[in-house]
């Protein structure tokens, strides 16, 4: 009944981890709040050419800009469609404003709603209840934002459906040989996104024999909550991995130019994603 109960069998190449866990039409979350964004997994998903995905993520960021630009998304559930610190997501905008390369459905929330929806998913609840959206226009354009009245105080609170992704992809510092996963630094919403999902695929910088001597609270996911683990050194680039390498800010700035032009984007994706392998990420973090 638990995903990936057999520990040793869950460490595998990234290609296999993606192939065995994702299918066309799935609802999928790639999480990592600026830190630990699973870009290598995203690129592998693009190489394998999935279709009609529902992409869930608080900040769609460069990772979804690439998938949307490749025409893989039918729907995006999100709360901040920006390139953090740089500006707009130009492929996502092209899809919303011009239907290129295909139209996408958008379901827009606030960060608080998205975080609460993941937490509700992890907690096995059908919906999240919180104090939010007061006076805001999003409930007028997103029919999944509703309200409930507190049975004790009468306060009207916002309610949104829980996130229950088919698959959640995350990147982490390390796993041990048993498959327990450790994350430190800005931990974001990955634990909730993983526990809300039916299947969990984790890329890690390295696998160590055990976590002896490390801080006892650093393990966020025990091995029996994880479906597959793939070692991809540099797998968060151009995001960063606390304790391993810094954010490649120049790459985020470059993306603003690459994504501004459809042909430039297509050429960049061919060179850096379609014709590349997960091993390329180790090169990309050199000097960071």
């Amino acid at each position: 009944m638990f995903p990936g109960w057999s520990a040793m069998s869950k460490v595998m190449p990234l290609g296999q981890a993606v192939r065995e866990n994702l299918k066309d039409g799935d609802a999928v979350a790639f999480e990592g709040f600026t830190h630990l964004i699973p870009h290598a997994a995203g690129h592998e998903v693009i190489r394998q050419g999935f279709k009609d995905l529902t992409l869930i993520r608080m900040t769609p960021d460069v990772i979804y800009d690439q998938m949307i630009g490749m025409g893989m998304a039918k729907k995006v559930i999100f709360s901040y469609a920006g390139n953090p610190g740089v500006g707009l997501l130009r492929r996502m905008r092209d899809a919303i404003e011009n239907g290129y390369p295909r139209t996408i459905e958008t379901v827009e929330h606030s960060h608080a709603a998205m975080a609460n929806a993941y937490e509700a998913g992890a907690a096995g609840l059908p919906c999240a209840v919180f104090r939010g959206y007061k006076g805001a226009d999003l409930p007028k354009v997103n029919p999944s934002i509703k309200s409930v009245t507190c049975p004790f105080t009468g306060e009207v609170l916002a309610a949104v459906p829980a996130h229950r992704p088919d698959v959640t992809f995350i990147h982490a510092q390390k796993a041990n040989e048993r498959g327990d996963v450790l994350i430190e630094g800005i931990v974001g919403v990955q634990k909730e996104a993983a526990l809300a999902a039916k299947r969990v695929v984790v890329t890690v910088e390295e696998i160590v024999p055990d976590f002896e001597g490390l801080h006892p609270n650093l393990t966020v996911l025990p091995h029996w909550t994880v479906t597959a683990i793939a070692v991809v050194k540099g797998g968060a680039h151009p995001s960063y991995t606390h304790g391993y390498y810094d954010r490649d800010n120049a790459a985020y700035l470059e993306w603003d130019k690459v994504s501004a032009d459809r042909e430039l984007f297509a050429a960049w994706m061919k060179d850096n994603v379609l014709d590349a392998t997960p091993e390329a990420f180790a090169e990309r973090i050199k000097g960071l």
Partner: protein
Amino acid sequence: MTNFTPTEMMTIAASRALTSKDVCFVGIGAPSAACNVARLTHAPDITLIYESGTIGTAPDVLPLSIGDGELCETAVTTVSVPEMFRYWLQGGRISIGFLGAAQIDKFGNINTTVIGDYDAPKVRLPGGGGAPEIATSCGEIYITLKQATRSMVEKIDFFTSFGHGDGGDHREKLGITTKGPTLLITDLAIWKPDPVTKEFTVISLHPGVTREMVQETCGWTVKFADNLEETPAPTELELTTLRDLQERTRRAHEGGKAA
């Protein structure tokens, strides 16, 4: 007198509004610069919180994103994003939310979602992120932006974050118990809401700025306070602190991959 730019005046005037007692939820961009200048000058004990979960952070350079590693390394503690929004923001532990804006109206309502119609937008902006709940859960809201007729408009296209709505007691009517926007700092002036109508009123002009300059760059008819003041020019310390911070930031972000 020292030379300074309108943007520098805006950032420094915004920094002066903060004190060591404040617990401040910091938006990226101009708010982040203002909050850190405050911390490096007159408000060393201010608690700065970024929505990535970093509480009590003291970065040496301004973060490019709200989740830069340095925010975590210098923070008192770093919590998960659900905890950030539930216990700390919704829990009422944050006194000031400091926001920027793409579009704002005279009642401090903010649009960062779309220009034009939501379903067929002329320009799709990033959206709200944390702002819709920051605007209603923080004790009060400070807003900073550069004046322009396309950003200070009579009617915003989308209510991303609620300010004072149609003015008056609109917040109370919606059951919102926090104060909402209490301060607007632009590159030309300092504005505060009228105590009754809640319409933003200019209370202080920055040095060298005229009423006409404020009106020409604002899309609604501007109200000025009877006892209009002049914002004190930046001090040498304030200006040096801001410029050093920006220079350190520029050098750090140029970094990226060693070429």
